[in-house]
């Protein structure tokens, strides 16, 4: 699809070159509504504090001595858009679609800490470009899906947590994987909040220096490796519910766009490729295939919602995606504890899956993820 669009650009090159050269002044004027951001080691200067809603462009220049990161932030520090690793002396143009409201622009020299902030007021009535109503419908349906997953997850987490608090190892182990399904299906949405994922789904290797290990995987280790439930685990179980209620409450407010849905689907496959296929995700319980299934289902949901538009723009792509989703589902079916029961989420323990079969799964994930990486482009076309 890219070829098609670039060729449009190429076709007008001859005519456009002359006009662009002749109209340098006007071309500069076209940049007039961009905000210049001059980042340095201890300052962050912006050329405007107020812009109309719609496409906002930041022309960033790093005049500092360290690599920096520039972000547009919602009032609650949720990231609207960001560019990491802008080297000293380099420039970058960041654009984002921003609705009316109060925001902050943050420069984070050294790419850490709170950074230097400037207020940004976006005026108007949210004049974002008119979007295909089918895509609006897809976004709304996906938002509902994300909410449903959170709503369905909480009772399952309660079951898990009650078992932990009762000190019932067997019941807790049984409830562990099902409690994660809704989360795994919609993980990119949850991760967009930034602060919830590190509390509930961090693995031992993902901890920062000094970070307290909380969440599912900490309990997983207690249940399968330490094989004991103490006072600390019971407290962590309560904390898990609290943190996931926070997710349930906020998930409906997530910024979701057709692009982020499509990229979220790809990210779910990335999760499978880097965490599940390797057996790293659930290294104590070996329930990786349940998470695997959840990731794929979530990706498929986003895809199915975007498909009407994508199929029109790039029918070859959706044909390939249909084929590869089916192939991966069929392959996963062979790992069901009861092959006849396609509704169950009981899968074989991943430590029983040999290296050659893991490669087969990995090949199937690659086969799906590669075309899935082109879905976003097919949607915005």
């Amino acid at each position, binding site marked *: 699809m890219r*070829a098609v669009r670039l060729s449009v650009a190429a076709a007008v090159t001859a005519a456009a070159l002359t006009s662009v050269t002749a109209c340098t002044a*006007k071309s500069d004027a076209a940049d007039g509504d961009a905000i210049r951001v001059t980042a340095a080691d201890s300052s962050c200067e912006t050329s405007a504090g107020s812009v109309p809603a719609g496409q906002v*462009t930041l022309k960033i220049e790093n005049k500092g001595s360290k690599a920096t990161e520039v972000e547009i932030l919602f009032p609650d520090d949720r990231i609207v858009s960001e560019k990491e690793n802008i080297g000293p002396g380099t420039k970058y143009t960041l*654009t984002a679609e921003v609705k009316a409201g109060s925001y902050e622009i943050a420069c984070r020299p050294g790419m850490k800490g709170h950074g230097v902030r400037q207020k940004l007021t976006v005026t108007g009535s949210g004049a974002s470009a008119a979007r295909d109503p089918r895509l609006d419908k897809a976004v709304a349906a996906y938002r509902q899906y994300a909410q449903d997953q959170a709503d369905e997850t909480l009772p399952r987490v309660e079951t898990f947590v009650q078992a932990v608090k009762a000190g019932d190892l067997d019941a807790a182990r049984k409830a562990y994987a099902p409690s994660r399904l809704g989360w795994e299906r919609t993980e990119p949405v949850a991760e967009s909040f930034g602060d919830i994922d590190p509390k509930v789904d961090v693995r031992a290797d993902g901890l920062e220096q000094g970070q307290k290990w909380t969440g599912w995987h900490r309990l997983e280790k207690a249940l399968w490796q330490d094989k004991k439930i103490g006072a600390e685990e019971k407290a962590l179980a309560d904390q898990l519910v609290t943190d996931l209620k926070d997710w349930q409450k906020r998930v409906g407010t997530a*910024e979701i766009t057709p692009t982020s849905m499509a990229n979220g689907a790809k990210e779910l496959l990335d999760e499978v490729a880097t965490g599940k296929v390797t057996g790293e995700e659930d290294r104590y319980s070996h329930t990786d295939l349940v998470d695997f299934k959840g990731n794929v289902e979530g990706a498929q949901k986003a895809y199915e919602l975007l498909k009407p538009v994508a199929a029109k723009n790039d029918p070859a792509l959706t044909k*390939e995606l249909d084929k590869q989703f089916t192939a991966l589902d069929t392959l996963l079916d062979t790992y069901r504890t009861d092959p006849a029961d396609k509704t169950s989420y009981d899968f074989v323990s991943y430590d029983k899956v040999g290296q050659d079969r893991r490669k087969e799964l990995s090949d199937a994930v690659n*086969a799906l993820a590669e*075309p899935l990486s082109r879905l976003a*482009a097919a949607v915005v076309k």
Partner: protein
Amino acid sequence: MSETTDQRTDETRATARPSRRALIGWGGAGLALGAVAAGGAVAMATGGESQDSGNEAGAVEFHGVHQAGIATPVQDRLHFAAFDVKTDDRAEFVQLLKDWTAAARRMTAGKTVGDGAYGGLAEAPPDDTGEALGLPPARLTLTIGFGPSLFEKFGLRERRPAALVDLPKFPGDNLDAARTGGDLCVQACADDPQVAVHAIRNLARIGFGKVAVRWSQLGFGKTSSTTPGSQTPRNLFGFKDGTRNIAGTETDRLDRHVWVGARDGGAKDAWMTGGSYLVARRIRMNIETWDRTSLQEQEDVFGRDKKEGAPVGKAKEHDEPFLKAMKPTAHVRLAHPDSNGGITILRRGYSFTDGTDGLGRLDAGLFFLAYQRDPRTGFIPLQRKLSAHDALNEYIQHVGSAVFAIPPGVRDANDWWGRTLLSEEA
């Protein structure tokens, strides 16, 4: 989650849907002009600064009667990959071979794959992975081969050439299934390792869903020369080996020993005319025990002196050896054409070191690549003899193996890898 784009996309998108800024910036010049201007800006950004290396020097011609990468003067580096075919749709497989050919044609000329590594839609990953940007073509050659297992697919069983036999088990073989076989192979040779790796990586990416990498091997140093008169590079044992290799200019020897002739194998195998057969062997060298071996024994094992690579009793590496002066188990004596009824293969192997083996020893050796007109009269009888008698066997072990039919070259811009086997007319 938010919709984020960068400058280029913003302007690219404007070709389809004029951005607000384009309209404002062009002072009411109108929708059409706004769109045109934005498109022009993209063309300037990418057209003014080519992503191609711009350095045709150092490019090896991709098209020809034979595939490049065989008689081509041996490049310094190798990335070799074997693939399993995953699709059972013949048309899809043929399309992959066409896509691969197009990508190979560009990469060997020092160009990026598809629409390049940047400048496209911000929402889509770039076609090219980008790590070869700014690097010269580095004499990159890409050579494709078809393994015996490919002929079990797509109704090709009847087309399997008689010469493409499964290699027998040789004494001492300790083959790892994960480093053995493959439906397809691609040999990437270049003078820059990054250029070779970039080529395999991009072909693998194009292939996802149709093929999957079965195994791959990096080679960091050439051990053979196909350039007449030049010195033979040393292997990791510190010796020159295969000094009588066929030079790329010796067309008569190439025709006799390397290229498949029009009448080889009869009409059924005519699609292989101009092709060749490749045997690939991963030969682990027991570096540490070799290094503790006395110089005398090392020289006896090879049948050469270490300094010059000269055969026993001779002064220079290319001097004609007197085989009877060597020990009966000396490598040169056993492998020499005169001991094997004239058997000659074109060697194109590379030294490899894949780190260490977990026991504190180098995981190193020779990735042996040999091209020949027919393995049944080439590698197989030679290896049968070597595996039974060669004094080197104490220091080496064959741990990976594969054999491939190497189809003839891609003739021109409309031709593609494997056409003579797979086209409807073929």
